[in-house]
């Protein structure tokens, strides 16, 4: 019996090896710089694209926009020169990303590095799309590196490149382990990871350590992706997302063990291949029809990782989590009535005055703002990075379609769907009681993948690729449906329905933030141990916040279902969840205003419509590449997002107006002094005058 599957297991070695190689790089960069790089797969992807281009015609294509990026280096590149170029290029890429992106974020919270690396991933994907010949694949002949003929291994035929790839990864693992255990450089890296200040005081340069390690890591990633191309292919998006299983493998190794990360990576690859082999057999009829077979292949490994994470987790963080890290500021909502009147008034006028295209964009904006609001609650207020919000919306969206088609009247169907999303949210929240930070981000991502692959892709639930349509919402004989003929499409009355839901949700969140619940949430966010010591039930606070947030996400999903002619699974892909988180961060993750700005910035929202209109669509070419760079810049320079920047600007203005003739510089210094956290050892307490 086992022999039947050994072919599948061995075939999975290739995919497993690339996951393992990326996991190795993630562990290495985390140990050296304390940063987790979501863009790691994208970096390897770019290097591989550059390699195949160079191998084909000697052109080196740089990851730059707006400047000529193609350099003709060699007339007749050889395997050796091409590999050398790839190694050098990945080393430079590793050094550049460290210096420009991750070094400034060394002491930032996990969320900032998630957002910055998402920006980097978006940028690299766009650069590859813009600079490399894609589409008609024949333009570049991708010459593989390793021999592909089959060999016999353990009595089963397997292609040589798979085995050699495994050899490469195992060698890299052994080399890294030895480097860390036996060399002075390894000792220094471990020291710098333990205490940056201590390292500097004994004369170790953390910058040098971080730079060298991220160069090594990127070289490993680049080579692995080059080697995997003949087995798994190469594509800007799919290859970039290989980072997700790699992160899972790295997390299993506690982000510090090379050996466990490699074994977990290989294991994930083989398990996926085995599931594929098992599910395609006709005899496995016990799996019900509604379970998507490919989904099973994607979901089972991440679920196993999730279980392992929860099992390893603890109800309260250990001391290592109590590093002083600046969180985005979360001001108490003020002038709520005034803002409500202003915004609702302006939106109402807009709904009545806009043409159909702008009405559509406005509705998209409001629905996106609702989704962003759910992220503000869970990630901004309680500090739990959740990447499952879009999946909750998807669950609610398809539920409302299904129950409404079964005959439930409009408001009841919507409420039922929201309730379902809330319940799912609470279930997803259960692991959050035991894992936190980056591990929670991955745990919720695993849940999102599981929901997407097993539930949202299920034909019986969502209609599969074709999607499903909701009936028109009618209440007391009033038709709230969105669609109408011609210029009347995207009817204002549906817009008012969305506006109503958004307004009520925002007011509810503002209220929660202002009463004791909000204080408890902020306490949990800033220090779980201290919150527990102050008598706050940390687990219950988190689960409560997840319930509120998934309820809001559910509402967004319901409105999304009613606002599109057919709802399809594509609206709820994992990449969309990442983008939603990034946009909310951009708007300002810890304030309601930030959610509204995130809505404006959302794809097909008002901002993109206006930007495209102003530049005759030319902005569209570079919009993703630029927003990628924008995300990186925001994460580094303005962790409070756009709302935070506006707020600071307003405060500055107010102060300098009050100060009159006085030089504004002094107020800036005073403000900075008062606002800084406990600095390097001494803290601002030293600044206070002593007692008289």
């Amino acid at each position: 019996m086992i022999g039947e599957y050994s072919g599948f297991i061995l075939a999975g070695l290739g995919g497993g090896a690339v996951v393992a190689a990326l996991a190795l790089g993630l562990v290495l960069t985390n140990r050296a710089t304390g940063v987790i790089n979501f863009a790691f797969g994208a970096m390897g992807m770019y290097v591989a694209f550059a390699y195949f281009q160079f191998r084909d015609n000697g052109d080196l294509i740089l990851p730059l926009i707006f400047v000529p990026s193609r350099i003709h280096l060699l007339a007749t590149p050889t395997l050796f020169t091409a590999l050398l170029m790839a190694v050098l290029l990945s080393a430079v890429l590793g050094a550049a990303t460290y210096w420009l992106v991750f070094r400034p974020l060394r002491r930032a919270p996990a969320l900032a590095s998630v957002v910055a690396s998402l920006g980097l991933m978006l940028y690299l994907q766009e650069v590859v799309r813009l600079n490399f010949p894609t589409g008609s694949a024949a333009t570049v002949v991708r010459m593989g590196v390793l021999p592909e003929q089959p060999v016999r291994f353990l009595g089963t035929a397997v292609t040589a490149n798979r085995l050699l790839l495994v050899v490469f990864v195992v060698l890299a693992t052994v080399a890294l382990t030895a480097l860390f255990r036996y060399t002075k450089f390894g000792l220094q890296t471990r020291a710098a990871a333990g205490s940056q200040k201590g390292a500097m005081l004994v004369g170790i340069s953390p910058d040098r350590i971080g730079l060298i390690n991220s160069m090594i890591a990127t070289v490993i990633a680049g080579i692995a992706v080059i080697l995997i191309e003949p087995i798994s292919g190469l594509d800007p998006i799919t290859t970039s997302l290989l980072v997700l299983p790699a992160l899972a493998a790295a997390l299993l190794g506690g982000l510090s063990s090379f050996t466990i990360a490699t074994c977990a990576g290989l294991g994930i690859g083989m398990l996926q291949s085995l599931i594929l082999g098992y599910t395609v057999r006709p005899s496995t009829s016990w799996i019900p029809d509604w379970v998507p077979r490919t989904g099973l292949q994607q979901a089972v490994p991440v679920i196993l990782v999730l279980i392992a994470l929860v099992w390893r987790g603890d109800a309260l963080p250990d001391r290592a989590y109590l590093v002083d890290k600046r969180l985005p500021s979360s001001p108490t909502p003020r002038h709520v009535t005034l803002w409500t009147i202003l915004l609702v008034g302006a939106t109402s006028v807009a709904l009545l005055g806009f043409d159909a295209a702008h009405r559509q964009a406005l509705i998209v904006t409001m629905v996106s703002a609702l989704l962003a609001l759910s992220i503000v609650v869970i990630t901004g207020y309680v500090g739990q990075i959740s990447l499952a919000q879009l999946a909750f919306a998807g669950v609610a969206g398809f539920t409302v379609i299904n129950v409404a088609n079964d005959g439930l009247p409009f408001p009841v169907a919507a409420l039922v769907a929201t309730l379902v999303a809330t319940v799912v949210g609470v279930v997803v929240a259960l692991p959050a009681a035991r894992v936190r930070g980056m591990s929670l981000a991955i745990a919720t991502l695993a849940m999102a993948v599981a929901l997407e692959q097993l539930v949202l892709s299920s034909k019986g639930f969502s209609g599969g690729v074709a999607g499903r349509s909701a009936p028109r919402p009618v209440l007391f004989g009033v038709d709230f449906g969105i669609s109408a003929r011609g210029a009347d499409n995207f009817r204002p009355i549906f817009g008012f329905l969305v506006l109503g839901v958004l307004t009520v949700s925002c007011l509810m969140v503002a209220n929660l933030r202002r009463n004791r619940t909000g204080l408890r949430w902020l306490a949990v966010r800033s220090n779980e141990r201290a919150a527990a010591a102050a008598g706050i039930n940390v687990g219950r606070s988190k689960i409560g916040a997840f319930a509120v947030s998934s309820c809001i996400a559910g509402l967004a999903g319901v409105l999304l279902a009613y606002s599109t002619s057919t709802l399809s699974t594509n609206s709820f892909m994992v990449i969309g969840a990442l983008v939603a988180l990034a946009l909310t961060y951009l708007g300002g993750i810890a304030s309601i205003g930030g959610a509204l700005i995130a809505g404006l910035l959302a794809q097909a929202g008002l901002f993109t419509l206006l930007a495209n209109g102003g530049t005759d669509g030319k902005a569209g070419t570079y919009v993703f590449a630029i927003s990628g760079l924008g995300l990186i810049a925001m994460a580094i320079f303005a962790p409070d997002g756009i709302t935070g920047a506006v707020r600071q600007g307003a405060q500055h203005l107010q102060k300098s107006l009050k100060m009159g003739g006085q030089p504004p510089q002094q107020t800036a210094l005073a403000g900075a002094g008062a606002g800084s956290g406990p600095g390097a050892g001494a803290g601002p307490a030293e600044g206070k005058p002593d007692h008289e």
Partner: protein
Amino acid sequence: MSVPQANQTEDPILRCAGVVAGHDGLAVVNGLDLTVGAGEVVALLGANGVGKTTTLLTVSGLIPLLGGSVELQGRDLEVSRGKRIGSSKGSARSKQVLSRARLGIAHVPEDRALFFDLTVQENLRLGLKRKKDRKHESLASNRVPSKVEDGTNQAEQQLSSSEILDQVLGYFPALTGLLDQPAGLLSGGQQQMLAIGRGLMSQPKLLMVDELSLGLAPILVEQLLPVLRTFAQTTGAGVLIVEQHVHLALAVSDRAYLLRRGKATLSGSSAELSADPDLVEAGYFGE
């Protein structure tokens, strides 16, 4: 660069002149003058928030100097690196700290900044200077002022790393049995020994210890403080300590400075100061 001078006017190990320093551009230390001579233990005293810790952080380069000068054996630390005064940019800052550590300043901060995941031995090994810095130092060692008569100072510069380790374990015998323990598992007192020991591994010219007694039993403090004195006397290095326990500090130091509002309002030999407790008290609480 200063020229070697006659013994009479020889540069002290550390000289702070008119130092202005603080956090985020806000001056806490404001015009501090202070010297630490060779083989001398100097105590910084004062109430909470007068800038004692800030002074140490500024000397080791962890926070920028806003004004005045800091010299190690007559060498201006800030300007010699060609960085403008007050530069707080991360990379420039880190370069300042590194160059000062390599020049011979060992700083044991309040939080001790140990590497908890590493063993005691690894922590100590990391304290060792790079070989090229050690070599450089022994070439320049004729400039190292020394109170030691028999010339052991010169020999010390060329000790092998294991000899240096033995020497440090000689100061703190309690660490000998713990060499393979992770630093995070040590008790508070053992951690303090390790932190000072790591500083001593670099054979510093200036050792600065911030709040040695923080969180330690008084009996342990009474054992640890004399080690600093022995170190200063046998190697001719300077030692600068920040201490809340005035009596302990005065008992172990040669001289002391009393800080108030970022300035030294009182200074003198420790013997004089201990003889006049009222004066010290007045310095703490105002007139």
